[in-house]
């Protein structure tokens, strides 16, 4: 069962399934983070939202009653995941490669894996799911172990922070394919990583408190 909600995107009312809405919201947030340092950030996001509205409009004209998850993922595929869109300050990422999630093994990693933090499934820094990914197990198990470490000696906190700093974040499709191979760590990249993560964390905190507020106000 799915609840259908109405959203207003670029001044257009769109009926959309709740799951699909969450997916779309995450995508737009990832764009906001990606273009964070860009002067024209708001404008770029508005333009992209306009395009999304247009694509949804075309889809709705075909007689579908509402937008679902497959429609949203098609739109994301058309526009491209955030990190492929080349922000001014970003490392040179090839924006014309097709999304890495779809064509997974186009990039030959010959079965080799590297340890990265997982940007697609994260609570804080994506450390646990990155490790889980590396060993091909459920991230819940790693998180459980970490929580136990938290509770027993507090080692978990320090271990987590160190892992957060040391394990690189994937930035290119090749990285994702390897879950990925990185630049050597030095003081500069570490401090930059920390700054980026802090910003991201702040954003997540804000999002979370907004979600909580929404949740409680709905309860009342």
């Amino acid at each position, binding site marked *: 069962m799915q609840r259908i909600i109405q959203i207003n995107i*670029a*001044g*257009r009312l769109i009926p959309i399934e709740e799951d699909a809405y969450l997916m779309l919201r995450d995508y737009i947030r990832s*764009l906001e983070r990606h*273009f964070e340092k*860009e*002067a*024209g950030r708001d*404008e*770029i996001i508005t*333009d*992209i939202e*306009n*395009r999304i*509205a*247009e694509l949804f*409009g075309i889809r709705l004209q075909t007689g579908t009653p509402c937008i679902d998850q497959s429609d949203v993922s098609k739109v994301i595929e*058309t*526009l*491209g995941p955030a990190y*492929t*869109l*080349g*922000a*001014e300050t970003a490392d040179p990422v*090839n*924006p*014309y*490669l*097709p*999304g890495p999630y779809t064509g997974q093994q186009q990039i030959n990693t010959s079965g080799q894996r590297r340890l990265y933090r997982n940007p697609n499934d994260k609570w804080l820094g994506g450390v646990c799911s990155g490790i889980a990914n590396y060993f091909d197990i459920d991230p819940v198990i790693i998180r459980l172990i970490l929580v136990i470490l938290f509770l027993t000696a507090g080692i978990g906190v320090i271990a987590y922070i160190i892992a957060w700093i040391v394990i690189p974040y994937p930035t290119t499709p090749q990285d994702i394919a390897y879950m990925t191979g990185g630049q050597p760590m030095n003081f500069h990249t570490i401090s930059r990583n920390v700054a980026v993560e802090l910003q991201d964390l702040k954003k997540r905190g804000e999002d979370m408190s907004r979600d909580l507020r929404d949740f409680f106000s709905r309860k009342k």
Partner: protein
Amino acid sequence: MTIDNTESQMRKGLLELCILGIIHREKEAYPSDILEQLKGANLIVLEGTLYPLLTRLKNADMLTYRWEESPSGPPRKYYSLTKTGLKFYARLKQSWDDLSNAVNHLTTSI
């Protein structure tokens, strides 16, 4: 080094020229229209790459736009070249012509 990568680097470098070229030819163009032409020519794969470029060109005073209501869907931004943009385009086009001549000359077997 893969062929895909090299090809896409080439296209990427020419994208700005092509965007300006399309707008120049059409006098005025809105993003979805530009996208269609770029996609038709196989110059762009991911639509999202266009919007940051347009905004940057606009912020660099190469482009300007006006809003226009569309018969269907949200209002459209119609982009056109500014004076600076026109000059920039002419120079870019000239460099491209020179470059492509030189490349053709070098890579043609006799």
